[in-house]
């Protein structure tokens, strides 16, 4: 009976070990993460660049309209 119990214990531990097993990180590749973050930052930078251009254009148009309105008043 005792032998059987210990056998069950061992099997339970083995099954649990298999279920909880995670990937081994002996072969981790850090460059994948570096690539992914670059894509994200580049996208963000690209957005900032386009947004800045949009704001600049908007300001220019606004000042043009404002100047036009002022000159029309006079």
């Amino acid at each position, binding site marked *: 009976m005792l032998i059987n119990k210990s056998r069950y214990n061992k099997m339970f531990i083995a099954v649990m070990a298999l279920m909880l097993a995670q*990937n081994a990180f002996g072969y981790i590749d*850090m*460059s*994948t993460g*570096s*690539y992914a973050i670059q894509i*994200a*930052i580049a996208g*963000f930078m*690209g957005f900032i660049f386009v947004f800045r251009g949009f704001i600049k254009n908007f300001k220019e148009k606004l000042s043009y309209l404002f100047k036009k309105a002022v000159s029309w008043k006079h």
Partner: protein
Amino acid sequence: MQCKGSFRDPSGFICQRNGEILRQINQCYADDFHALQKTGLLKKLWELNDLIPHKEESIDEAFSLLAYKVIKPQRIPFISYPYEWSFSQLKDAALLTLDIQLEAMKSGLSLKDASAFNIQFMYGKPIFIDTLSFTKQKTNGPWIAYGQFCSHFLAPLALMCYRDIRLSKLFRTYIDGIPLDLAARLLPMHAKFHLGIFYHIFLHAKSQIRLAKIPIKKPKTPGRLHPSGKISDIGMRGIIESLKRTVQSLKWKPKGTQWAEYYTFTNYTNRAFQQKEEIISKIIKAAKPKTVWDIGANDGKFSRIASASGALTTSFDIDPASVEKNYLQCKANGETRILPLLMDWTNPSPGIGWSNEERMSIVERGPVDMVLALAFVHHIAIGNNVPLDMIARLLADLCKSLIIEWVPKEDSQVKKLLLNREDIFKNYTEQGFLSTFSRYFIIDSKIPLEDSARIIFCMRHKE
């Protein structure tokens, strides 16, 4: 003989033959080297004094059948390593790497390495030494050296700036840069509020760990394992500019360390200090050394006397604040013959890397014509319990001639060192000092300093 630190890049290697430095470029790098020349980038970087100049040698000088070309780069007077640099030296090296990358991108090229070991300090400024680091930029591809740049430059600079200046020493353990996850753990919470640090270190570290955990799936495109996604030219330029802004924004003011105010709180009278300067100047002018190591230089007062006589002077100190001050002064004055470096002589730079040979120890980088060991011996002998014989032996390995200051026990600085400890230094007497040093050196002159118990000795190596 192939240089021991030059074996990782299959594009070529550095060799030494008959005292000359040569670099073999292998056939596998022919296309990239041709592009470097054809695009005019090589010439442009030479004009900017950013890349080490070289001359082409005959192919008969080749070291193996793989050779495409053999070049002879200009010799660097003294090889130093990132763990020996001050904050601003590392920062200048980082900015140079980014400037070169920006310049390379204009020519459709890119740096494949962003290692801090690819930078050396020559004649007062950093210079890029790896001519074989350039490769054709893949359209819409990432910067392959981005991760390396962050761990070689950004992480140590951020740690020095936000946590503690002494963390630059981590470079000695992590020869391929400080792991970003470690940097992210060590950085304080408020560093996350710096946008550049947040995404180039914190998010980057998280991304590295997260994606490293995902098992590799069968790629949709054969041979492609990396995440799909394109990086536009604007995006790529944005990344480099953002790195540049982040590096530029990191600042450290030298203050509060042990030695930073050394000359402000000295026990010298003005007369004694002036006389010391005159004596050192006179000895150096007479000896005319070509190379000098000032091994306890503080902010480089006496290194400047040596460099003024034409000697290429390496100015070592244990204190990061003193080295920083010295470097900033060199930059401000345009001094080209002084190289300030961080060095703890009780635990100097060892040979590290593969087989402990990839990066040279400081002793291997000697000997030099002259060593200045001023106000040095008492710190090592009494402050660190190093016997006089071991100090003399090390100095004999480092130089052909020596200017050394003897600081006796009656001196107030030595009294301070002995204040809270038992005096176990029975041999620390002028007689003991002379009998020990005369085993390795011929003592040429003895000059006592006025208004002081200190003595300057001028010595020559026995062999």
